[in-house]
């Protein structure tokens, strides 16, 4: 079994004044992973990243990098490099000098600096701007400089703090692909901090969802989306309908739920439950029909369409059930008379297969 490149063991960070930014976190990150720390602002993800880089020291716990505990090693002695949210490209140096800086200060021979800098600039497609000063460059270009400057050091781990947040939408999509491509080319571990779930889902091989200084779940993007461990993760990743339910009967793995505003139905789960639970259903797993749907075990409820938002390929529909529960339904407009045909005020059947829903106990 391969050793983790980074092993965070029971790390906590408490700031003066009693603020706990990171609370007893343990994460193992494998070599060559594209790992994302995802969470709302203030969840401690940036603090955790800064502790990996050495810019912050943990109050408790150990951080193993390449098998060695480096929790208190200063940043200039660690095999990690960071791409800062503000890029922090030195304004008084040219692009070339910026990229070569990390090699120069560690005493790499000038000839080697030259070739490695050229390679790094080639990699981020900036060779033609080597002699520019940062103030003559766009945000996207400065970010490439920051990337090249970090990668030229050949770190074991590259840390990226909200790398896409300062870019405009078009550039962000390009950069997302670019980062994935780079990670595959250079073959080093990337750890990215982001609050944007789309970013994390589309780039990362594994994601740690963080909430209030703790890890809510560590999983692959698909697992996070389809098997969220608790309400927070289900709600934070993508859109979801959360239905409060009472468990009225438990017989082995079959749990009979009474969801408020929906009705009774059976769910299959091996989770131990109390009398209360939450049923999570993604909007695209809800279906609409004008006549009562037929099928054994289907959960169905009558609802009034309140709002239709048309997005071309899909329509997002809000409907209220008879008992006043709001449901969000995403309809694929896969025929030219699909979701677009649904109108406000229309009474329709909303239904889903319980297999597509998830019973959450946390």
């Amino acid at each position, binding site marked *: 079994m391969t050793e983790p490149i980074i092993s965070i063991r029971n790390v906590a960070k408490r700031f003066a004044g009693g603020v706990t930014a990171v609370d007893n976190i343990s994460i193992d990150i494998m070599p060559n992973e594209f790992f994302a720390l995802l969470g709302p602002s203030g969840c401690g993800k940036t603090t955790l990243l800064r502790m990996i*880089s*050495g*810019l912050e020291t943990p109050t408790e716990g150990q951080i193993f990098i390449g098998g060695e505990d480096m929790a208190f090693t*200063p*940043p*200039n002695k660690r095999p*990690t*490099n*960071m791409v*800062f*949210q*503000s890029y*922090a490209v*030195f*304004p*008084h140096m040219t692009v070339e000098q910026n990229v070569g*800086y*990390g090699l120069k*200060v*560690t005493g790499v021979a000038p000839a080697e600096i030259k070739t490695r800098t050229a390679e790094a600039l080639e990699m981020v497609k900036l060779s033609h701007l080597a002699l520019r*000063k940062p*103030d003559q460059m766009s945000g996207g270009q400065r970010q490439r400089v*920051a990337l090249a*400057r*970090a990668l030229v*050091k050949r770190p074991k781990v590259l840390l990226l703090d909200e790398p896409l947040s300062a870019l405009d939408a078009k550039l962000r999509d390009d950069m997302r692909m670019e980062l994935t491509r780079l990670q595959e080319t250079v073959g080093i571990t990337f750890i990215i901090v982001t609050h944007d779930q789309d970013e994390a889902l589309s780039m990362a091989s594994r994601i740690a969802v963080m909430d209030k200084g703790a890890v809510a779940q560590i999983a692959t993007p698909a697992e996070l989306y389809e098997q969220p461990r608790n309400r927070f993760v289900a709600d934070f990743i993508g859109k979801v309908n959360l239905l409060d339910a009472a468990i009225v009967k438990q017989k082995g793995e079959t749990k009979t739920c009474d969801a408020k505003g929906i009705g009774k139905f059976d769910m299959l789960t091996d989770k131990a439950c109390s009398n209360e639970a939450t049923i999570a259903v993604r909007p695209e797993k809800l279906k609409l029909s004008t006549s009562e749907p037929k099928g054994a075990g289907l959960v169905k409820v009558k609802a009034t369409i309140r709002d239709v938002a048309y997005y071309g390929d899909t329509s997002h529909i809000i409907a209220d059930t008879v008992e006043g529960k709001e449901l969000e339904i995403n309809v694929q407009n896969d025929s030219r008379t699909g979701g677009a045909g649904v109108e406000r005020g229309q009474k329709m059947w909303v239904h889903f297969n319980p297999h597509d829903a998830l019973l959450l106990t946390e």
Partner: protein
Amino acid sequence: MDDWKDFRRVFLTLASPGSLWMLIFFIIPMTFLFVLSFSSKAIINGETSTTAYAYFSTFDNYFASAGTSYLVLLWRAIWTSAIATFVCLVLAYPLALAVCFAPPRWRPIMLLLLILPFWINLLICTYAMYSIFRSTGVVNQALGLVGLGPYEMLNNTTAVIMGLVYVYLPFMILPLYSTIEKLDRSFLEASLDLGASQARTFWSVTWPLTLPGVITGIILVYIPCLGTFLTSDILGGPNNWTIGNAIQNQFLEANNWPFGAALSFILMYATFIALIIRAVVARRSKGVDA
């Protein structure tokens, strides 16, 4: 943004009080002094007048200014000011850094303490120094208790430089503080992250990025130091007079305004040279403060 030219009247109205002030109290007197520096006292009926001048009559004042005794005074002003400015910089930079990196709630009080001399009259500051360091002053009395001294600590160049540093230190601290405070910490973090030591980070990143503040501080300290006469008189005595004392002497004692004017303008040219050097340096490091 709107062009001020679209609001010419508003602009003129707002600008006129300040312009008028500058005209009456700066441009007119300076022009008069400039003219005077090329003039001599008028000779009326064979007697030298004390109030009338023969305007644009001579270059003698400048020739006299170039005399050895005055060049010595000018040179002394230049190098004592240079040392005082350097000492200010060496003292002020770490202090400004310390304030910037102190916990935010301590910063205002630290800054206040550091710039306190700035709030106190120059004369009071200087006499305070005098009373502390004179031969019967506090320091010598204290030394006397342990059987040392008294030592002559005044009437030398070191005393003048110390006095200048004491008075002008705030002028160095303030621009340095404002520049360092604005410096994005992530530049320093990036440097450390890329493998540079703290010292290397200071010389390769912090220092060059705060150079505009350093230059502003140097100018704010160096220029008033050049023209000082109070400090050099009280703490230095006649042997340590600088060009400022000579100018004061010509205007107040010798009543030779044309010559005083010429000396003043020579001092001003020295100042202009310093400013030109600053402009050249600023152009070369363009982009640093962007």
